[in-house]
């Protein structure tokens, strides 16, 4: 049973933020933080790159819009042209309405699928869950995980550092 990393629990968001930045200053890179709600400060500290998901959403939107309009155009112009109320075959105003809705749908689906994909969800089994202390539920706690994979990781040293940063508990996490 190999070691995945050390997970430290903090009582307050600020404590977590402080600890995280401190560890980063010590040169730790392979860290992750867990919190019941988002803590914006961590983004900089953990050097989280801005996500490219907005582009996926845009792409999804355009795809939905274009494909739908194309389908409509094909159906009225090529596949079965019909004189409906003496209106032109290509009556774009009504067609745009449908295409717009389809665009929204495409974008939303792309966003939803995208965020799951990017976050690697569903991920039912994750080392973090091995930690006895780790629980999303208690709500109050805020966790910092330092992975063994980090070049600076030394079990004892790291544990000490975390404890000194005010961690309530520091626990080894099995992979």
């Amino acid at each position, binding site marked *: 049973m190999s070691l995945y990393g050390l997970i430290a629990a903090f009582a307050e*968001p600020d404590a977590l933020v402080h600890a995280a930045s401190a560890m980063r200053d010590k040169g730790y890179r392979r860290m*992750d*933080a*867990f*919190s*019941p*709600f*988002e*803590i*914006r400060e*961590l*983004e900089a500290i*953990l050097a*989280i790159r801005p*996500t490219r*998901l*907005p582009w996926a*959403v845009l792409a999804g*939107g355009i795809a939905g819009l274009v494909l739908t309009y194309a*389908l409509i155009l094909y*159906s*009225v112009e090529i*596949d*079965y042209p019909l004189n*409906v*109320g003496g*209106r032109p075959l290509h*009556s774009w105003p*009504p*067609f745009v*309405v*449908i295409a*717009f*809705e*389809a665009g*929204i*749908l495409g*974008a*939303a*689906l792309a*966003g*939803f699928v*995208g*965020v*799951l994909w*990017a*976050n690697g*969800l*569903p*991920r*039912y*089994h*994750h080392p*973090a*869950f091995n930690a006895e202390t780790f629980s*999303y*539920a*208690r*709500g*109050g706690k805020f966790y910092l995980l330092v992975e063994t994979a980090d070049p600076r990781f030394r079990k004892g040293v790291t544990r000490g550092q975390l404890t000194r940063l005010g961690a309530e508990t520091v626990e080894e996490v099995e992979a």
Partner: protein
Amino acid sequence: MARTAAVGRAPPVLRGRHDFPEISGRIAGVVLNGRLPRYFWAAFFLCFVLVLVLFYSITYLVAIGVGKLGIDMPVVWGTMISNFVWWIGIGHAGTLISAVLLLLRQPWRASINRFAEAMTLFAVAMAGLFPILHLGRPWFFYWLLPLPNTHMHWPQWRSPLVWDFAAIATYAIVSLLFWFMGLLPDLAMLRDRAKTRGAQLFYGILAMGWRGSARHWARYRVVYYLMAALATPLVVSVHSIVSLDFTFAITPGYHSTIFPPYFVAGALLSGFAMVLTIAIPLRWAFSVEDLITLRHMDNAAKLMIASGLIVAYGYASEAFFAWYSGEAWERTMMVQRAVGPYSTLFWIMLACNVGVLQLLWLRRVRLNMPALFAIAVIVNIGMWIERYVIVVSGPSRDFLPSAWGDQSLTWLDFGILFGSIGTFFALIFLFVRILPAITIFEVEELAEETGRVA
């Protein structure tokens, strides 16, 4: 991030200082180990009876035919359409609260957006029934979709009913996704709080292994906001399209360009009325007055009167342009609306949606829950009548007097309407039983923000 609880003389969003275990504990408690009071089950049973009524009515309708509804020549549209518009309208407030208020960074949305979204979802589900029940041959409803078939046949894209289909489907799906995304962290919360294996698996599977990693949060936020940004134009387009069902037609009383904005406003009015109709009993029943505070009630009431005024303007301009158009049938139709066979309904509608609503100018009324609840219910009724009056009064007095005729409601019309209302509330009950009715993580976030300020 500029979040503040300093909102003038309005009551605070949250009352008292909360710590996180306390919040999550209370909310999750309702779901996980909540012993629900007897009256909860009593109310649920009542709704369930209405669900059975709905099933019976639908079976009867499909087996015998739409002729058993009140519809006739010339008034071939009836309650199926007005129910549809009504329910869609109710849905809109939910999306508005969850999406628009999110974008506008309104802190007070936090504790009511969850059930508002649920309300949207169930309302849309109800609304989705009616276009199908409305059909003469419901079993062929799928012909509205561009499915591959051996007819080589397509939907007729110019028809507003096809736009409806697209709009409603999109709206339903987007609302569901948005709602589910919002639920993820709370599902994880419940997973980890669950005592029994069954609950763990149930919430665990739904939570998809969410663990609140900072990296996840970052992407999550971006997409959640994007979805909100998508939902906002969507919600406006949806009811505009619904209104186009009428505007697109040349029938007197339908053919009016004021409809889209006026329908959207009407939607918000009925929507917020429904939010209050649900929230007021809810916060009392689960004694979460400190999370769903008078501030929420107050704001919702304010939004009601705001949208209510737009609706009133809609009524006025309808009447004005009927006269201003100078077209005989538009004028006759409008006069007939006021003095004709449906005049009673028309005046009740005005009383509910314009008259009673004005009470909300008074802060006293806004903060008096029983009064607010009563007004909300009255507005709901008024808005249904509005839709019905619009649907029937036009065709009943249109171009050729020889073809004039009225429609009468049958037991089936009411069976389906009340059945759908019962079903809606039954779903709401189930929802508060198995899912957190208040967004835990956002309330915590909010608590933490306000905590800092304090």
